[in-house]
């Protein structure tokens, strides 16, 4: 068992990072552990950079994670993963969906989206434990686009069993209710990737 485990989730508003954070938090509570989560939000419903922080353990003080000290970074989008990379140290595990979401500047042609290779290189330089997962594509195969994040979580749990997978599945049922079926299927796919 891990005495404390900290995760940064980086993505774009509307990608479901907050739901993912809620699932992990619920699973931690179901496992009898303490949790704290925090988030850094933009000023709108969706479309801006969003970072969530989670800490799980016996006693958790603050919701924030120190730079270079995250145990894991779940990257829902490559530019946002790099934006959160100051939390990554040599021991950090990164699971990343490499499919980009353009910014408004990219959309209107004022700026190019950075080269994906360059973004991946920045992340690779920080840690050897870097896993690129085609989560959205896998989820689309399941016809469950909303469940891509659960694939990433499944992969992370297969690397670091910081919570028992049955508790995560129970948490998915609690947080997502009737939509839990596909999310659990996606989580299991991630566990076996």
């Amino acid at each position, binding site marked *: 068992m891990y005495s404390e485990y900290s995760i940064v989730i980086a993505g774009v508003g509307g990608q479901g990072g907050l739901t993912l954070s809620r699932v992990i938090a619920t699973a931690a509570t179901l496992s009898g552990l303490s949790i*704290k989560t925090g988030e850094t939000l*933009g000023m*709108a419903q969706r*479309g801006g950079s969003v970072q969530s922080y989670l800490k799980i353990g016996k006693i958790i003080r603050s919701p924030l*994670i120190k*730079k270079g000290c995250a145990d894991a970074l779940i990257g829902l989008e490559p530019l946002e993963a790099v934006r959160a990379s100051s939390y990554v140290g040599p021991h950090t595990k990164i699971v990343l969906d490499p499919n980009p979401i353009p910014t408004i500047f990219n*959309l209107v042609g004022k700026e190019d*989206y950075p080269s994906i290779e360059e973004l991946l290189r920045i992340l690779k330089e920080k840690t050897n434990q870097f896993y690129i997962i085609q989560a959205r594509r896998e989820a689309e195969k399941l016809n469950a686009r909303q469940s891509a994040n659960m694939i990433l979580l499944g992969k992370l749990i297969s690397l670091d069993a910081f919570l028992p997978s049955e508790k995560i599945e129970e948490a998915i049922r609690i947080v997502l209710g009737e939509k839990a079926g596909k999310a659990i299927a996606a989580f299991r796919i991630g566990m076996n990737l």
Partner: protein
Amino acid sequence: MHHRQNLVLMGNEAIAYGALTAGLAVASGYPGTPSSEVIDTLLELTASGKINRPYIEWAVNERVAFEICLGASLSGVRSLVTMKGPGLNVASDPLLSSAYSGVEAGMLILVADDPGPYTTQTEQDSRWYGEFAKLPIIEPSDPKEAYEYTILGYELSEKIKLPVIMRTTTRVNHTVSDVKVKEFVEPSYTPSFSKNPKRYLRAVMTWNRERHGEVLEALDKVESLAEEFRLNRVEGLGKLGVVCSGAAYTYVLEVLEKNKLLDKYRILKLGLIHPIPKKIITEFLKEVNSVIVVEEIDPYIEMKLKALAYDEGLQVKIMGRQELFPRVGELTPDDIESVIIGRQFKLNNVALPMRPPPLCPGCPHIGTYMGLKMGISRAGHRWGEIPIMGDIGCYALGLNPPFEAIWTEHSMGASISMAVGLKAAGYPKPVVAVIGDSTFYHSGITSLIEAIHKDVDLLVVIMDNLTVAMTGHQATPEYELSISGRRMKRLDLEKVVRGLGVERIAVVDPYNYRDVSEKVREFIHQPGVKVIISKRACAILERRAGIGQVCWIDPEKCTNCLACLKLTGCPALSPLEGRVSIIESECVGCTLCMQVCPYNAILVRKIGVAKINV
């Protein structure tokens, strides 16, 4: 007898649970990040039937919400009013008199500050209001304390018969944590209201002077009550002092524990911010060799400590945000570690492209801005030549490409009144003010009355998306049914504006952006106040209600000219794989892109029907 339950709650949810555990009877507020989820949670609990009795509704603005809660507390029931920092500025008029009237039952004022800032126009530190309004301020450090302080806040309020301010910051409001909660208590008292002119009437100046004295005496009791409630505490026996409050306390504790320094330090954790608890601080200052003050946003406690040390003749060195920490922005555990052990943390040195939130796919504001742009041009002006005074809400995102529309965004309702100011100054060109429906009802309506009365030449565009969108779709005066189940009387925006005396008024659908542009062209040079109501429900609500069609691009006709992207900036359009395409799962079928495509390459199809080129 109370059944305790361990729940995973966001700080704001914990505050809602705390208020219900304390027997809350009336809650009101105006949405504002990071405070909105308190009332949202109370409404959901009402809707789910988990509570009944309490009155829980959003109000038209913070001052009205404040006065509703003050009135309720005068009648002997417990009330809760919630707002973000600048909301307390709106409510500051009744706030500053509220100590003079006092309360009969507990009144808790939740004000959520936003260090960073992440979602607020200023990095306002609302703790200054304690001294200003002569009201106690308490500050919890995490969701668990937020729950407990809410309950204690009511007890404190009732002991001294004054409203109590609970100040939080984003790291408390939006932190999710495990919280042990007790059962809700149904409000059991019957409201009663008796005449008490000296307390409730401010028209007699000798009473006001007398009440001033009584309020100060009531405040003098707060320090010992705080001791009784254990709001302040000292941890550790070391000689190095740290004084802290709020979320910053959790960073301090974590950094000291992880670096195994707890035995060298002595922490004074303040839960009572105003009046500053002199006794515990003075004793603390005598026991330590130096003091670091860790607090969000201004050096408030730091300045209080320095004044107190001076009064007590203590030479101890006190340093905080004025000397050690960044003076702006949110504190982090890294900041504290770098001060305490000198560990320097590495910031990202890669310059990354920004990702401001765009207007959503199908956002009606896109159509309004497209129409405004075209109308201004058809009236003979360049885009960027005519000032567009903005206001607070999603439409402020029109500052970003492709529109780069608004010139100002100041405070609720200021679009119209600042535009009046430009014209009053003799500004020669036409001026446009854009404002959302909820912001209009909140404060814009008084600005519009001023503009109408002074017969100012001004075009006002009210972007009516039928909700408070930015903070998560809360009710406006145009809602007929509250989430709580309460029936409400719907106001008709057009009738309201017409009733104020506006003669040139048009209601248009922003999805027909040419209609918007035609009215802009027609109105912009006409004298007096003209109002265009650009009306269409928020696209997120439309999507939830179910959309019937989506757009698609016929690759045979598309020349990849990107006019659709450059003119709408719609995030459902994707240029990433070399060719523009529509992300079908994002599209709401607004057809704005279709309307601007020069090659008629964008088509619409009903959901569930195959792509057929007709």
